[in-house]
């Protein structure tokens, strides 16, 4: 118990000897508990010891109090050290994770890294996707154009087929048939041709007039 005051006196001497900018031991009490260091705890220990010196009237009680207080300070010291250790450990873990992430980024294919630097109007195409876009607008235009032409031809062919089916041709053939037979047998081919042409024009005129 007697050593403590001496220690305290030393402390005070030291302090007086050093520059004024160093905060006094009382300062430790004003600090946030989360910013406490082990040094602060020693400062608090010194201050408490100095206070105890003033109640020397009952030495036996003071000693008891002194031991208890020292015990509390020891516990506090342990806690602070423990938490500082935890912080150190967490910092180390954070650094390790950082390294791990960087390593993974380097391992990834170049494409994914590029994605981050892609402009807003760019698109990534998965070349393994069988349904990926791969034809150009012009190609689609051309295909559509061709489809339209084919469809137009189909419509014409369908109409002609309908004519054939509805017997319009056979009706015509009934008329033209004998003439043609005649022509192949008797007439020169020239005259039968003009005959045929006439009937085609007639027929067209017939349809055009909407009958």
């Amino acid at each position, binding site marked *: 118990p007697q050593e403590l005051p001496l220690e305290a006196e030393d402390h005070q001497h030291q302090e007086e000897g050093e520059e004024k900018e160093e905060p006094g031991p009382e300062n430790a009490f004003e600090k946030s508990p989360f910013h406490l260091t082990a040094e602060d705890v020693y400062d608090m220990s010194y201050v408490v010891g100095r206070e105890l010196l003033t109640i020397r009237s009952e030495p036996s009680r003071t000693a008891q109090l002194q031991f208890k207080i020292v015990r509390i300070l020891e516990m506090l010291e342990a806690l602070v050290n423990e938490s500082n250790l935890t912080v150190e450990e967490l910092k180390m873990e954070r650094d390790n994770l950082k390294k791990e992430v960087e390593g993974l980024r380097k391992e990834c294919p170049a494409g994914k890294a590029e994605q981050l630097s892609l402009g807003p109007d760019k698109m990534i195409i998965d070349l393994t996707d069988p349904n990926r876009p791969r034809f150009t*607008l012009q190609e*689609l*235009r051309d295909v*559509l*154009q061709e489809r*339209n*032409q084919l*469809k*137009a*031809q189909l*419509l*014409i062919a369908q*109409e*002609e087929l*309908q*004519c*054939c089916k*509805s017997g*319009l*041709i056979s009706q015509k053939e009934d008329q033209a048939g004998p003439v043609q037979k005649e022509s192949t047998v008797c007439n020169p081919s020239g005259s039968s041709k003009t005959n045929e042409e006439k009937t*085609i*024009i007639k*027929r*067209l*005129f017939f*349809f*055009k*007039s*909407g*009958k």
Partner: protein
Amino acid sequence: KMKSSLMHLVPPVSRDRIISHFPKWYTPEACLQFKDHFHAQVRSACQQRNTGTVGLKISKVVVVGDLYVGKTSLINRFCKDSFDRDYKATIGVDFEIERFEIAGVPYNLQIWDTAGQEKFKCIASAYYRGAEVIITVFDLADIQTLDHTKQWLEDALRENEPGSSFIFLVGTKKDLVSGAACERTELDAIRFANEMQAEYWSVSAKTGENVKEFFSRVAALAFEQSMLKELEKSYGRMAQIGAGNLIRIEGNSLETPESNAQANCC
């Protein structure tokens, strides 16, 4: 360019494509014209077979509107009398040719069905040019699609001479909405139609309600318009040259139909 030779056989126009009386509008609140008969000039020209170069006239119709409103279904109901429940997005554009006989004169509608998907807009819009009729379609059960019709129309009009196209606004899927809901939406649609200078129709491709009536109306209006334009042209030429028999010469050209046998698609 697509050329179709008319040196081929054409079956007679089916009976339900023969239009002899001018088809009626859907609602007087939003209709392009109130007349119930063909223009006198057109009628007499048709009667005299004095249709000259109009003889085998094709008018271009483009159908635009949001995806899934039923543009293809509407066209398929009319042209093929079929309805497919399953949705299949149109790729780029498609077309149908529908043959009519109007006032005794053969007449074709070339109906261009466009994709509603945004990504096909750049392809489909190339087909807007030279449209005698623009049909903007929306879904009666999805009011948002009505809001978008103005944009569709604007895009289509950009490719055409101002005032050269008839505009129709069509609400589809009438079968999906109740009578009261339909009437409410129609009020909005009629307001839109008036702003767009369009004629309004409510239809159902599924049940076929009003589909034939609608396209008959489209065909008759487009036919009359193109006849008037042709007649105006030939009268203009006649006045210029002062040769009254020019039209008769054109009439004779009916016998060589290859000369005007170009289907002006694309």
